[in-house]
C-alpha cells in the first residue's frame, strides 16, 4: 500500500498504478523518495521504471543487515532518471534464512557488479544473474564480511 502522502509523487503513483501489489510502503524523507517493493516483484517494477519512467541508470545496488531483526536484509536500489533529473530508492526486505532475490541485470547490465558485490559481502543470492562470483574477496573466502555477525577484527595468528 502506498502511503497517502506519496500519492502526489508521480513516480510513486505510477508504480502503484502499474502493480498495486508490488508496493509495500514508502516514505519521502530529507528530499529522497523511497519505495518498499515486494521482493518477488523487483525485476518487473525495475523494468517498468526503466522503460516507462525513463530511469535509465542504476546508480547502485547495496544491502543493509538489520541483524538480529527479521526480516534481516534490506536490498537497496538507487535509480536515476537523467531526463527528469530525478532519483528514487527501492527497497526489498529479505528474511535472514537463505536470502534470495531476482536479479535486475536483465534490466540494467550495470547491476552486474553491484549484485556480485552484495553477494560477495552479504551472501545474498541473485537468481538469474549471469556470473554470480565473489568480486572483492578471494574465491575461497569463507563468510560474508559485511554481515553484522561477522567480526571487524580477526584473531592474531
Amino acid at each position, binding site marked *: 500500500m502506498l502511503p497517502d502522502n506519496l500519492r502526489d509523487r508521480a513516480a510513486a503513483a505510477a508504480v502503484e498504478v502499474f502493480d498495486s501489489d508490488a508496493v509495500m510502503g514508502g516514505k519521502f524523507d530529507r528530499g529522497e523518495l523511497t519505495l518498499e517493493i515486494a521482493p518477488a516483484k523487483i525485476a518487473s517494477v525495475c523494468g517498468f521504471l526503466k522503460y516507462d519512467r525513463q530511469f535509465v541508470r542504476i546508480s547502485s545496488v547495496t544491502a543493509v543487515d538489520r541483524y538480529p531483526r527479521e526480516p534481516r536484509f534490506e536490498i537497496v536500489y538507487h535509480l536515476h532518471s*537523467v531526463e527528469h533529473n530525478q532519483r528514487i530508492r527501492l527497497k526489498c526486505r529479505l528474511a535472514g534464512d537463505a536470502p534470495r532475490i531476482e536479479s535486475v541485470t536483465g534490466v540494467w547490465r550495470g547491476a552486474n557488479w553491484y549484485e556480485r558485490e552484495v553477494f560477495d559481502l552479504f551472501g545474498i543470492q541473485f537468481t538469474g544473474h549471469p556470473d554470480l562470483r565473489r568480486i*572483492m574477496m578471494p574465491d575461497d573466502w569463507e563468510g560474508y564480511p559485511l554481515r553484522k555477525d561477522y567480526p571487524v577484527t580477526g584473531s592474531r595468528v
Partner: protein
Amino acid sequence: MSDTAIPPEVAADLEREQPPSGPRRMVLNMGPQHPSTHGVLRLLLELDGETVVKCAPDIGFLHTGIEKEFEVKNYQQAVTLTDRVDYLAPMSNNLGWSLAVEKLLGLEIPPKAQWMRVMLVELTRLNSHLVWLATHALDIGAMSVFLYCFREREEILKLFEMFSGQRMMTSYIRIGGLALEPPRGWYRRVKKFMDVFPSRIDEYENLLTNNPIWIGRTRGVGKISLEDMLDLGVTGPMLRAAGLKIDARKDEPYSSYEKFDFEVPTRTENDVYARYQVRLDEMRQSSRIVRQAMDGMPEGPWKAADQHVVLPDREKMKTQMEALIYHFKIVTEGFRVPEGEVYQVIESPRGELAYYVVGDGTSMPYRVHMRTPSFGNLQATPEMVEGSLIADLIASIGSMDFVLGDTDR
C-alpha cells in the same frame, strides 16, 4: 624468438590446447602489476593476433573493507577513512561524506565554509586531472607531459600541505565545516598559482592537441555508445565526451555550486581524444571556479554553530565551563546522528560519487555504502575494448581515469 627456441614439451602443450585447424588464440594475463593499469587491475585478455577478442576485468586486489570499518568509527573519525578511498581526490570524498552526514543531522553550513569547500574540491579536481593527464600521456608515449603536469601538481599539493599539514590525506573538510581556517598567506599563494595555471594548460595543449602521434593514438579509439554507457553505469567525463550534459554540480547542486558561474564542457566524438578535450576544458572551468570563490569569499564563521557537533574554539574552552564539557563529550563519545538514510551525490573528478549513509541514532553509522565512480566506469571495459587492438586498449582504459582504491574500497 624463432620457433626452434620453444622447448618440445611446451610446444606439445600448445598443440594440445589449440588444434592447428581452429583459430589460434592466446590468453594474456595483463596485470595486476602492469604499469598501464594504474594500480592493481587485472585484465584477462583473449587475443587473436593483436586483436582483443574477449576481456574480463578482475578487481578486488585493493579491497580493504573500508565500508565495514565505517561501522566502528564515530562520524567525525570516519572522515579519515574517506580520504583513503580515492587517493587522488581525497577532498571530494571528504565533502561527499560530510554532506551526507550533515543532511542526516539537518545541519546548516555557513557560506564561508561552503565557498571554501567548493574552492578546495575544485583544486582537488585539478590535482586529479593533472595526474590523469600525466599518466595517460605517459602510457601512450608522451613522456614530457608527465613532467610538466607533475610540476603543477606539486604546487597544488604544497597548497594542501600548507593548510592541513598533509599532502594527500588531508581530512580537511569535516562534518560541520572545515578543520581549521587556512593560514595567513594561503590565499596569496593560491592566487599566485591560479595566475599562471591557465597558461600551463595551454602548454599541455601545445604538446598534445595538434600532435599527430597523439591524434593518431586517440582519435576514433575506445568508442562505446552512450546507451551502453548509461546502461553499464558509466558516469562523469566519459558521458560528457559522448555529448550528454550531465554534471551533479549543475543538476543537483550542493555546497552553493548554483551560485558559481561555470560551463559543463561536452564533446560528441565519444573517443579517447574527446575525453581528453573534455577533461582539459574541465580544468579551465575549475580554475574559473577557484578564482570566483577566492574573489567572492563571504565573511563569517568557517564552521557551523551547532555546539553538539562542532568542537568549541580553543579560547572559549579556557574560559567557559560549558565549552569544556561539550569538547569532552564530542571527543570521547562523538555526536549522535538521528535515525534515517540519505544518498548524497556529488561530482567527483571521475564521475558520480555517492555516499549512502544509514544512521541509527547512535554516534556511529549503521551502514555506509560508497557508490564510487571508478567501479561503475570499469564495468564498461569489456564493451569498450573488445574488438580493438591491444595497443588501443591501453589508450582506452587510460581514458576512463579509474583509481583502484576507489574501485575496490
